[in-house]
């Protein structure tokens, strides 16, 4: 861009330079407030967009806000509470007012700041929080009630009658509240999250940030420079200036070029830092494709970056603050710096006749900017009553109208400012014609990121603003964010911070010299509010006025946090970036305390709002969590298995056959096939741990309640482990494969926690033991083979040399066997089903083949694959406990396994299991339950009440934990935890299930329904 000198006055015909296309000329002509030249926009690239259905044109390089300004649109929004007409106030991410609904359908996105939304061809935006239209909003009737709708009014009313709250009052309030509408369809776009690492993270690419990045990069450190804008330069893009004797734009170009040339520097634009977390983890949002209509193929909409940095230099700049005066929210009242941005960067004139209200020297820059763009300065209102020295020549030259005093009213309508009323110190009023009022109340260093670890900002009287206090470890703030307001100081501060950060990271290169620029004076005399009749807004979005602040003070809400919570000051989408300091300054005034004593509210991440979709990234739908597949998964899928998510695992639940009307029929078939023949089930999901070492037996003795050192090689044993508090942790079968090698299994659910627990025991509790642990869960494909024909099936499968007789491979035996075809397997004779059963393990690569071979070997016996449901039915028929009984509240004795507890050795949980309440005689213990009506379906979660008892806390004696339809009992049966249950076998109780409107009688019985003597499994 060409700088000020290239800008031409509004209305003058553009010099016919180059080949301006007809289309771009037409586009320019349609934009009533577009300057004919200048600006960082591409006039060769006109873009059509629509706002509230009206089609307009802007240029590439515009934001939606700048395009609206260029088209002369002032009214863009309605406020939250009073539905007052609002315009564009800022030109950055701090914008409190100009929020729009972007896009349509599933991509509809509420509350997007027009000031940061880059324009693209076909952009569709709507105003929000209005009905039926922005111009005629019915809810603006709220303004009539504004004398009642003061801060906190709702706490004082809407209480009578009580029932009216949910029915009447609240629905009205809820409908009135909120801003935009969100899409009600799943977000169609994709997101991801990524990691980056560096020595020095520089946040912000204005003069300070560029200076810091140059210094750190030259010194040789790994640098990442993030900038939320789509181009580097920061305020230099809006205010220009001169650095090292060249135009600021030229300096930015050169700096960018130098940084681009350094392999150790990474520049990330459209990337906004939003959080700082422990250990140097910084979170940033990259808007990858928000500037185009839809993301390209395989492109994400946004990406979250977690940037791990040893040091960070935050150069987040400063935010210009408004002044509270009556009418300060009228469309066309704009921050002075924003006016300059629209004029200089975007070549868009916010007004043709601009009044300026400033209490500081910096605001005066606006005079020059407007005049150079060909606009008129209607007047400068400066309560200090004096033209700053730097601007005296300019004021005289242009015969500037300069007024002392303050703005006490702004005239106009929904379409914006028409005049400004100025009241002098002596009370004399005068009205000035203007269509735009630029306001500068001074600058607040953007300290937010420095406070995210609870550091408190420090008040500085000379600039009447807070500057950073204790920053998070490794962070420094530099430049305007650090209270340095002159360009020269920013460049020096940035350079020093960048060089120091690089040195801290061990970089030893030469950081070079800081660039030079002038040190303009920043004089200010604080002005927070102009006290006059009328609503003077502090928080524009939430409609918090200066009088709301003083009302809160009168009612005792004097703490800044009370002020915020009572009035909602600073709780809007901008989190008070433009309002908090003003609000607390007014509170300080009302209480007679200093601003420093009054303090700020707590700053919290994110610095700017972040889409939830981005924070979720790739993890949604099937990728919500990782999944685990068993070795026979694809085999089972090909056979039509129904899968269920259990933890991360996908498990075959049952294998439906044609003609089966429901899952119960399938499961019943599978159970009967096992009980009458043979079946198999993939149980690879069990946790498996190799426990090795000379002390492996001793180790397991201390982990389990029962003994394992005494287990013979080639044998398996059921084991139960407790938590240290005496409650059951997990169970499983553990086999001894060699003198110094045990193979331990856990339940599917507890595989991870048990492994961590075992390592804790090994590394922390008993480091003297020689034990090595390794997870073998994924190494083995493990199948349970069960049913009276199991042995026959196995005989077909194993090498003929293997003795599979009851004597040769007795119950609870465990050893390696050779299979026909050369594969070696581990075989364990254990039974969960109560039938003759084995579990067989082969290396996972053979899992699918094993399933297929079991089908072949078992074909003569009608072998049937079964799923987890049939597995569950058979364990309930046998009274084996599982997850619903091992619920983290039951003791070994509750489960009927108390006798397993060794009295000869110490083990985890032994002592605490002996506490009085855990050994009380009235505990709920595991029993069997069967409805008297054999056709009755028993349901888990139903409660047990004594027969004839009235349901109530005193009669609530337990509940049903697990149920199934038992093909062997030919009725529904279940297990339950019932008070004194073991003493009550045979008792008839009432099963009470009010949730499902069921109530019936059942008998308490032994939990072992089927083959109680255990004959079948030993046969």
């Amino acid at each position, binding site marked *: 861009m060409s700088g000020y000198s290239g800008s031409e006055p509004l209305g003058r015909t553009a010099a016919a330079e180059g080949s301006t296309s007809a289309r771009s000329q037409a586009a320019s002509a349609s934009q009533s407030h577009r300057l004919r030249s200048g600006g960082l926009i591409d006039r060769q690239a006109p873009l059509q967009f629509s706002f509230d259905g009206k089609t307009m044109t802007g240029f590439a390089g515009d934001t939606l806000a700048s395009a609206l300004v260029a088209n002369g649109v002032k009214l863009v929004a309605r406020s939250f509470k009073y539905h007052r007409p609002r315009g564009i106030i800022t030109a950055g991410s701090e914008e409190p007012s100009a929020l729009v609904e972007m896009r349509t359908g599933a991509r*509809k*996105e*509420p*509350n997007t700041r027009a000031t940061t939304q880059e324009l693209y061809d076909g952009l569709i935006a709507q105003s929000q929080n209005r009905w039926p239209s922005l111009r005629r909003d019915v809810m603006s009737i709220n303004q009539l009630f504004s*004398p009642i709708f003061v801060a906190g009014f709702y*706490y*004082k009313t809407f209480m009578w009658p009580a029932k009216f*709250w*949910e029915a009447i009052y609240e629905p009205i309030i809820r409908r009135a509240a*909120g*801003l*935009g509408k*969100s*899409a*009600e*369809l799943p*977000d169609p*776009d994709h997101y991801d*999250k990524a990691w980056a690492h560096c020595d020095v993270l520089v946040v912000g690419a204005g003069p300070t940030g560029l200076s810091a990045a140059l210094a750190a990069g030259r010194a040789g450190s790994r640098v990442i420079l993030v900038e939320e804008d789509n181009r580097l330069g920061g305020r230099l893009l809006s205010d220009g200036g001169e650095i090292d004797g060249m135009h600021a734009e030229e300096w930015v170009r050169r700096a960018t070029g130098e940084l681009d040339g350094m392999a150790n520097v990474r520049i990330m634009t459209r990337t906004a830092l939003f*959080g700082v*977390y*422990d250990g140097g983890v910084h979170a940033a949002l990259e808007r990858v494709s928000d500037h185009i209509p839809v993301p390209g193929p395989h492109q994400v909409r946004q990406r979250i970056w*977690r940037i791990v940095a040893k040091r960070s230099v935050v150069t987040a700049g400063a935010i210009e603050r408004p002044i509270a005066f009556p009418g300060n929210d009228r469309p066309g009242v704009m921050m002075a710096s924003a006016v300059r941005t629209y004029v200089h960067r975007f070549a868009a004139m916010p007004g043709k006749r601009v009044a300026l209200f400033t209490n500081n020297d910096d605001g005066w820059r606006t005079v020059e900017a407007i005049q150079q763009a060909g606009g008129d300065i209607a007047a400068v209102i400066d309560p200090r009553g004096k033209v700053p020295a730097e601007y005296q020549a300019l004021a005289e030259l242009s015969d500037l109208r300069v007024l002392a005093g303050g703005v006490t009213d702004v005239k106009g309508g929904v379409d914006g400012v028409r005049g400004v009323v100025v009241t002098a110190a002596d009370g004399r009023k005068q009205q000035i014609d203007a269509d735009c009022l630029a306001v500068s109340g001074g600058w607040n260093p953007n300290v937010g990121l420095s406070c995210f670890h609870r550091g408190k900002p420090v008040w500085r009287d000379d600039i009447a603003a807070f500057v950073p206090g204790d920053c998070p470890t490794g962070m420094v703030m530099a430049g305007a964010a650090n209270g340095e307001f002159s360009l020269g100081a920013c460049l020096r501060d940035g350079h020093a911070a960048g060089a120091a950060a690089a040195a801290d990271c061990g970089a030893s290169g030469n950081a070079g010299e800081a660039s030079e620029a002038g040190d303009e004076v920043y004089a200010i005399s604080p002005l927070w509010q102009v006290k006059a009749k009328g609503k003077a807004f502090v928080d524009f979005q939430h409609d918090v006025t200066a009088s709301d602040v003083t009302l809160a003070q*009168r*009612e005792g809400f004097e703490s800044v*946090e*009370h002020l915020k919570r009572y009035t909602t000051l600073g709780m809007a*989408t901008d989190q008070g970036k433009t309002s908090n300091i003003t609000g607390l300054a007014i509170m300080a005034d009302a209480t007679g305390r200093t601003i420093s004593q009054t303090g700020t509210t*707590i700053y*919290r991440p*994110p610095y700017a*709002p*972040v*889409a*939830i979709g981005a924070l*979720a990234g790739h*993890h*949604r*739908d*099937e990728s*919500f969590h990782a999944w685990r597949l068993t070795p026979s998964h694809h085999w089972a899928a090909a056979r039509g298995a129904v899968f*269920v*998510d259990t933890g991360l695992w996908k498990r075959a639940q049952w294998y439906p056959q044609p003609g089966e009307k429901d899952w119960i029929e399938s499961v019943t078939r599978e159970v009967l096939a096992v009980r009458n023949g043979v079946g198999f089930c993939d149980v690879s999901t069990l946790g498996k741990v190799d426990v090795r070492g000379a002390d492996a037996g001793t180790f397991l003795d201390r982990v389990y309640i029962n003994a394992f050192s005494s287990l013979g090689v080639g044998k398996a044993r059921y084991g139960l482990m407790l938590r*240290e508090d*005496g409650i059951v942790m997990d169970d499983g079968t553990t086999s001894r494969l060699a003198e110094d090698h045990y193979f331990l299994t856990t339940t599917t659910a507890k595989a991870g926690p048990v492994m961590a627990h075992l390592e804790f025991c090994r590394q922390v509790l008993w480091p003297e033991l020689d034990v090595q642990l390794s997870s073998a869960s994924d190494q083995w494909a493990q199948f349970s083979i069960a049913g009276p024909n199991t042995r026959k099936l196995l005989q077909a499968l194993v090498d003929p040399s293997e003795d599979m007789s009851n004597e040769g491979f007795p119950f609870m035996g465990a050893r390696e066997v050779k299979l026909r075809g050369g594969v070696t397997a581990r075989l364990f004779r254990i039974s969960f089903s109560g039938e003759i059963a084995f579990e067989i393990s082969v290396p996972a690569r053979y899992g699918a083949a094993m399933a297929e071979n079991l089908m072949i070997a078992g074909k003569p016996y009608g072998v049937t694959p079964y799923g987890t449901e049939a597995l569950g039915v058979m364990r309930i028929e046998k009274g084996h406990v599982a*997850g*619903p009984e091992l619920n*983290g509240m039951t003791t070994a004795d509750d489960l009927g396994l108390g006798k397993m507890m060794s009295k000869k050795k110490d083990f985890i949980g032994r002592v*605490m299991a002996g506490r009085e309440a855990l050994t009380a005689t009235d505990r709920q213990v595991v029993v069997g339950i069967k409805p008297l009506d054999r056709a009755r379906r028993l349901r*888990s*979660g139903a*409660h047990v009440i004594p027969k004839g008892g009235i349901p*109530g*806390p005193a009669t*609530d004696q337990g*509940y049903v*934990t697990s149920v199934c339809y038992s093909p062997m009992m030919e009725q529904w049966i279940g297990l339950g935890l019932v008070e004194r249950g073991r003493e009550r076998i045979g008792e008839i109780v009432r099963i*009470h299930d009010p*949730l*499902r409107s069921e109530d019936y009688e059942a008998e308490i019985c032994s939990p072992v329904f089927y083959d109680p003597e255990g004959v079948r499994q030993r046969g």
Partner: protein
Amino acid sequence: MKYSIFSLAKAALSGHQGWTRAWRDPAPKSHYDVIIIGGGGHGLATAYFLANEYGIRNVAVLEKGWIGSGNAGRNTTIIRSNYGLPGNTGFYELSMKLWERMEQDLNYNAMVSQRGIINLYHSDAQRDAFARRGNTMRINGIDAELLDAVQIRKELPFLNYDSPRFPIMGGLLQRRGGTARHDAVVWGYARAADQRGVDIIQNCEVTGFVRDQNGKVTGVETSRGKISAGKVGMAVAGSTSKVAAMAGMKLPIESHVLQAFVTEAIKPLIPGVVTFGAGHFYISQSDKGGLVFGGDLDGYNSYAQRGNMPVVEDVCEGGMAVMPMIGRVRMLRQWGGIMDMSMDGTPIIDKTPVDGLYLNAGWCYGGFKATPASGLVFAHLLARDEPHPEAARFRLDRFRRGAMIDEKGQGAQPNLH
């Protein structure tokens, strides 16, 4: 001044110049019958009930900062009484009943809003656990409904019913559950207690206990001087261990950080409270329009009132899994509260081994919903020196005896509750 639409309209005529402080700002007296340490919801409710129900009005609430500055002002505002274990069930229902009359009791609109809470389930095992809990509720006279996915779809059509992972199978609904405006609860109790004579003393930090020769607590040392008291009650969840240490006590409590989040305000979308059963995510929408949501603890001991990114991501992943239409809604603010995590996930309301010192602690992340009942039963304990019947199981010695109340079955591992 009584609050009503009439007083409001009248005040409007004078530009609201007539409103006075919602509660006084008294200097501490030298002696109170009862001192409550902690000006959060529980402490203020305790003071209110002491004055209102037990006739003890010479009471001070000492708050080191501003009232409501702890967890009372940092929670996700959910109220519910859907507990499953004896001890919890009756207590939380007592609390729910007090919520239901709170506004009339206090003459303060705390926006108690019973728009329902639904716990989604995604597996048979979860359904069974919810059925057990729902039946417990019904047996105790509490409303509960077990809905299937078809029924839920009618009320919450925007959920992800067809998820390829952990599809929604149903949910346990308590229609009387909902939310309340957390700050208003604090202010309402403060104003009502103040009106009944209670002194609320802000910016008054307790720095030690005054004890007699027998070890009995007879007062407190504070940043505003020594104050003597007949009895001292602690209601400082988040700082319990620190205050207890001043009396030489060690407790079965750890402090953990729980994060919560709010989005930008949007038009009404979510009617009640929804909790996702296959991940760490629950959500509701405030009257202002922000979606208020949260998830699991960060998992490590912390007094920092702020957390880290993994939990932010975990929670948002849960959110996108169960309601993928919130993808473009923006998280506006995240914060952290310090949870008094007890060793079984259940609170402790009891006398302490130190004579004259009473404990109200261990609220984990369930303290807000308990506020009114906690105040009532703690006031009862302070006034009568015996536990309120609905808090009889919240004893400190239950861990020693093995009588834990462990709804999640996680044992003495606070970060898992």
